[in-house]
C-alpha cells in the first residue's frame, strides 16, 4: 500500500480550495517516525488549513494523506490517531485538569482504574504531578500549555499536531516553552508537527522545517540547510535577517560569479547548488548581518578578514542590544547596511567612524529576480 512504512505521516499532493481561494496547493511531504517537523510561513499561507486536513476537520480537494502508511481520507476526525494542540489550547473550562486529560480515554472506553493510572502517569511526565484537581483557570499559561499536550499524549497518538501553541504566551514564557517543548518531544518520542510563523521557534526546536508560502512548500530541510542554503529568495528573506542588493550578473560559472549591484558596486557570490546564473540576468543578493564584519578604517586587521566582498562606509548608528547588537553603516552610495557587532563597552565603534564592511563570497546568496519587488 505504501512504499515506506516508517513514515508516521505522509502527504501526497494535498490541496484545498475554498471556493476560488486555493489555500493549499499540491503539498507533499513525509515525516519519519519520532521527529520534530515544523511548518513555517507567514500569516495566511495555509498552515492551519493543512493541519486541519491532517486532523480531519477539512476534506482535501485533492491528494492523499497517510498516517502510518494508511490513507485516512475516509476516516472521521474522531477515529484518526492524530491529536492536536490548538492555538488557544481549547482546554475544556467546565472540567478540571484530571477530567480534561481523562476525556479522550473515556471516549475510548478505558476503565476508570486505568484512566487514573494513565492520567497520573502523564502528569508525572510533564512534571505537574499535583495539579489533577485544579480548575483550568487556576493554571498559569505555561501549565495550561503542558496540560494541553498531556491531554493528547495520554492517548498515544501517532502524530501530534501543534498549531502555533506559543502564540498566546508572553515573551519570556515563550522562550522557556521553546526548550521545554523540544524536551517533551524527546520524552514522548512521538512525531510532532509544529506550525508557526516565528522563525526562531521553528529553527530552535525542529529536526526538519518546511517553509510554506501562498499555499505551497518552498523548501523542506534542516534548520541549518534553510538558513545557510535557502533555495529561494523567499526562504532567504523569511528565515533570518538579511541585507539585500539587486543587481545584474556580470560573469558566472558553476561555482559562483560576479554581480554588479544597482548602485554600481561589484559583488561576488558562490553558487548555492549546481545552478549557474545566466550572465546578464537580474538577481538579488542576500547577505546576513552576522557574516559581515565591520572593521575600523584605520585598523590593520583588514588583511585577516577573508572576504572577497568589501564596502566602505560611515557608522550611522549603533543598536545596542547586548549580545545581539548591530551597527548600521551608511555606504558611499547612501544605503544602510546592517552588520552584527559585539559591543563590549570598551573601545567600541562610534557613530561617525569610517569603517570597512567585509564578507566572504560564500556568504552571498544569489537568487534570480522573480520580478517581485
Amino acid at each position, binding site marked *: 500500500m505504501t512504499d515506506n512504512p516508517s513514515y508516521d505521516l505522509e502527504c501526497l499532493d494535498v490541496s484545498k480550495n475554498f471556493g476560488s481561494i486555493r489555500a493549499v496547493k499540491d503539498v507533499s511531504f513525509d515525516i519519519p517516525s519520532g521527529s520534530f517537523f515544523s511548518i513555517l510561513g507567514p500569516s495566511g499561507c495555509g498552515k492551519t488549513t493543512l493541519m486541519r486536513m491532517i486532523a480531519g*476537520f477539512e*476534506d482535501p480537494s485533492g491528494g492523499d494523506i497517510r498516517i502510518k502508511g494508511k490513507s485516512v481520507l475516509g476516516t*472521521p*476526525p474522531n477515529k484518526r490517531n492524530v491529536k492536536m494542540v490548538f492555538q488557544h489550547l481549547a482546554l475544556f473550562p467546565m472540567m478540571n485538569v484530571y477530567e480534561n486529560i481523562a476525556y479522550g480515554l473515556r471516549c475510548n472506553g478505558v476503565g476508570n482504574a486505568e484512566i487514573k493510572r494513565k492520567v497520573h502517569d502523564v502528569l508525572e511526565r510533564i512534571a505537574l504531578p499535583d495539579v489533577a484537581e485544579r480548575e483550568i483557570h487556576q493554571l498559569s499559561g505555561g501549565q495550561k500549555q503542558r496540560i494541553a499536550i498531556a491531554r493528547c499524549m495520554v492517548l498515544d497518538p501517532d502524530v501530534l499536531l501543534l498549531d502555533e501553541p506559543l502564540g498566546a504566551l508572553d515573551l519570556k514564557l515563550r522562550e522557556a516553552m521553546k526548550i521545554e517543548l523540544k524536551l517533551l518531544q524527546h520524552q514522548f518520542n512521538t512525531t510532532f508537527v509544529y506550525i508557526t510563523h516565528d522563525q526562531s521557534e521553528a529553527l530552535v526546536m525542529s529536526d526538519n522545517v518546511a517553509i510554506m508560502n501562498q499555499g505551497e512548500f518552498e523548501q523542506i530541510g534542516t534548520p541549518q540547510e534553510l538558513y545557510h542554503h535557502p533555495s529561494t529568495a523567499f526562504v532567504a528573506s523569511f528565515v533570518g535577517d538579511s541585507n539585500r542588493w539587486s543587481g545584474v550578473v556580470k560573469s558566472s560559472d558553476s561555482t559562483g560569479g560576479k554581480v554588479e549591484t544597482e548602485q554600481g558596486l561589484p559583488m561576488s557570490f558562490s553558487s548555492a547548488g549546481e545552478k549557474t546564473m545566466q550572465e546578464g540576468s537580474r538577481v538579488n543578493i542576500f547577505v546576513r548581518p552576522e557574516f559581515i564584519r565591520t572593521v575600523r578604517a584605520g585598523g590593520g586587521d583588514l588583511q585577516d578578514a577573508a572576504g572577497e566582498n568589501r564596502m566602505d562606509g560611515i557608522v550611522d548608528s549603533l543598536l545596542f542590544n547586548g549580545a545581539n547588537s548591530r551597527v548600521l553603516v551608511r555606504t558611499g552610495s547612501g544605503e544602510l547596511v546592517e552588520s552584527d557587532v559585539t559591543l563590549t563597552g570598551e573601545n567600541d565603534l562610534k557613530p561617525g567612524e569610517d569603517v570597512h564592511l567585509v564578507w566572504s563570497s560564500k556568504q552571498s546568496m544569489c537568487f534570480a529576480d522573480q520580478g517581485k519587488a
Partner: protein
Amino acid sequence: MLVQKKATPFLLGYRLYVVAFFIFLAAPLISAGAFAFNDSLFPALPWQGFTLDWFFGDTEPKLGMFHDRRLLQGLYYSFVIAIFVSALSVFVGTTNAFLFVRGEFPGKNFFYIMMVVPLVIPGVILGISILVLASDTANYVENRFDLELEFLRPGILLVVVGQFSFIATITSLVITARLKKFDETMEEAAFNLGASRARVLRTITLPFLRPAMIAAGIVAFLVSFENFNTTLFLVGSEAPLTITMYDRMAKVGSTPVLNAVSFFLMVGSGLLALLSILIQRDRSGQ
C-alpha cells in the same frame, strides 16, 4: 459533524428542520397579516378576494384602520407610552450600567440580582402589585387629607411606570454589557489629552455607549408597544393599541381591520428591527 459544512444527509435534514422551524415562526404572523386583505367582514376563510379596504376604507362596515379613530387613538397612546418608557428605561439603564460596572459598594452582587429580578416576575403580578400600591396610597391620601392624587389612579402614568418596572432591566442588561467592553483607558487617554470630566463623558463614553443605548431603546419601544399583561391592570381611559385591540376582539367582534393593524405593526416593527441591525452593524465596524 457538529461543526462541519460537508453535505451529509444529516446536515440536509438539519437544514430542513431549520427551515421548518422558521415556517413555524412565520405562520401565525402570515395568517394574521394575510387576512387583512380578505374582502370579507370576518377574518376567516373562505377567501373572498383582495381588498385594501381594511386599511383605507372610510365607510362602515369596512372602516379601514386609517379611518378608525379608536384604533388610531390606541396607536397614538401606544406610541406616547412607548416613547416615555424607552426614554426612561434607557436613562435608568445607563445609570445602572455605570453603577454596576464602575461603582464599588457593599452588596453589589445582591443589588445586581435585584436588578434582574423584575424580568422574571410575571407581568400580571407586576401590574397588580403596582396597581394595589398606587390605589392604596391614593385612597389613604384621599381619606386622610381629602386630596385626590390623580396620577396614582390607572392611566398613562401608571402604565408607563408599570412597563418601565421590568423594561428597565432589559435596557440595563444591554447597556451594562456594552459598558463592560469599554476600555477605561480610553477615558484616561481623554483626560490625559486635556478633557474635562464632562467632556470625556460627552465625547468618549456616551458615544461609545450610543449603539447599545439605541438598540436598548428600540427593544424597550417594541416591548412596551406589545405589552399586554402588565398594562391590562394599569390602563385608564387612555388605552394603548393592544388593549384597544383586545377589547375590540373580546367585546365587539373582530373584523379584518384587526388583521390590518397587525400587518401595519409587523411592517413597523420590521423596519425598527432593521434599523437596530443597521446600528448594530455600525457598531461591529468599530
